[in-house]
């Protein structure tokens, strides 16, 4: 029988195509579970999971917590704002203190790239990366791939454009790895200041023209401009960005084919995507949120299976 080739989920880069397909297949079963009258299964009732968030998050944290609770795991939450990190404790010490209370798995969001990988090498518990700075956000990429597969039947051979702040986006990097491993073609689109210099080494196409990119693709993933990560001004104004790289209904309707619009959230309505596009029938933004719980259940279930008794 199949199982994951990894002991932690720190990034899509470590996964094989078989791993990704196993997660998506398991997630489909969990999606059925969360649509039952009783949306809960007892599989993980002897597992305790700590959600350790050193960075703000609403949707991801809620999604992880729901996934854990629907698997019957015990859940403890920890956020940096109310923690001893402020008192000068190191990451490993903080986590080891949590683990001393017999926690089996740690879901961590951290502002530093590589933090999850680092942690997975230092502690005994399973680690799930819920976003490490501008590096990776693996569960987001998995749920995006799941949503594309659900809508289009397959990811193989599909063309996906990721639009926006590629430079600061962990969603973009994880999506590029994930989509390419599943056999999709990926293009990134945005102002040249927000496209990393050596991005072509990842084997993706680059465009600076939104219309051209949208005409090429089957799926457009519109990223949020992460002003909180931008230390300098990468473009003159939000208004100019929106005019050049924002997707509105006029542009969407003028395309020669119907494309699918995705967004990892939170949306800045009127900046990267207009309200009528976000609420249109081509948008699968809320499906992504629902699928997020199922995909995270699958990841936690498959990693928990590797916890020694």
């Amino acid at each position, binding site marked *: *029988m199949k199982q994951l080739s990894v002991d932690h989920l720190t990034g899509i880069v470590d996964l094989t195509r078989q791993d990704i397909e196993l997660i998506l297949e398991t997630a489909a079963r969990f999606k059925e579970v969360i649509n039952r009258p009783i949306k809960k299964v007892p599989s993980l009732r002897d597992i305790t999971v700590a959600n350790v968030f050193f960075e703000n998050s609403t949707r991801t944290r809620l999604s992880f917590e729901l996934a854990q609770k629907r698997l019957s795991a015990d859940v403890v939450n920890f956020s940096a704002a109310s923690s001893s990190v402020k008192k000068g404790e190191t990451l490993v010490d903080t986590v080891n203190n949590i683990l001393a209370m017999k926690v089996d798995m740690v879901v961590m969001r951290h502002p530093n790239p590589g933090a999850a990988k680092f942690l997975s090498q230092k502690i005994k518990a399973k680690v799930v990366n819920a976003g490490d700075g501008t590096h990776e956000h693996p569960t987001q990429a998995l749920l995006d791939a799941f949503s594309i597969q659900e809508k289009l039947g397959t990811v193989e051979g599909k063309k996906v454009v990721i639009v926006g702040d590629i430079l600061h986006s962990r969603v973009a990097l994880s999506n590029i790895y994930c989509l390419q491993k599943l056999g999709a073609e990926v293009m990134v689109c945005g102002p040249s200041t927000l496209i990393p210099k050596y991005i072509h080494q990842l084997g993706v196409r680059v465009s600076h023209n939104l219309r051209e990119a949208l005409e090429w693709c089957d799926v457009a993933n519109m990223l949020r401009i992460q002003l909180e990560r931008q230390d300098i001004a990468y473009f003159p104004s939000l208004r100019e960005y929106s005019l050049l790289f924002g997707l509105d209904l006029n542009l969407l309707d003028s395309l020669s084919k119907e494309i699918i619009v995705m967004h990892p959230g939170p949306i800045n309505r009127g900046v990267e995507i207009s309200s009528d596009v976000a609420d249109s029938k081509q948008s699968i933004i809320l499906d992504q949120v629902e699928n997020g719980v199922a995909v995270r259940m699958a990841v936690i279930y498959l990693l928990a*299976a590797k916890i020694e008794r």
Partner: protein
Amino acid sequence: MEKQVILNATQLELTLKRLSHELIETHGNFENTILIGLQPRGIHVATRLKIILETILGRAVQAGNLDITFHRDDFRRRETPLLPSITNIDFSIENKRIILIDDVLFTGRTIRAGLDALLTFGRPSQVQLLTLIDRRLSRDLPIQADYIGKKVDTLSTERVAVEWQDMEGQDQVLLFSKAANETAQR
């Protein structure tokens, strides 16, 4: 391994027909009764019974498949994770009479998990259990079937396999046991 045929194609067909008539005896025209086959192998029994019942009754019989993976009691007690099959119960089971169906009843653990899984879909008015083969005297839990195709006495080292024409190419029930010399060598 020694192989012994417990039921051949003709006997299996007869048994399924007998079970169908037994079900009709209790459930009439199946107005309020649903067949639920347990994944992965019980669904084949359910499918065959549904066909026979529909032929006899001349009306559609509601049926679904239930996967019990997430309700099993041996998660993390195996080398590899338990991977789920598809559940399709896209109807309400509230106040319905349910017949849970599996091919082989052995330790009873699958049925225990099946009951738990079933109840996440609502509150049926009654649940009964049908099994094609009852490996009696081998139960780990106090679970017995209401409808039984055939009772067999087996050792726990033996294995019972129910095979189907559209899966393995032939309808039959087989008992695999270690040959006398294999046992002696061990």
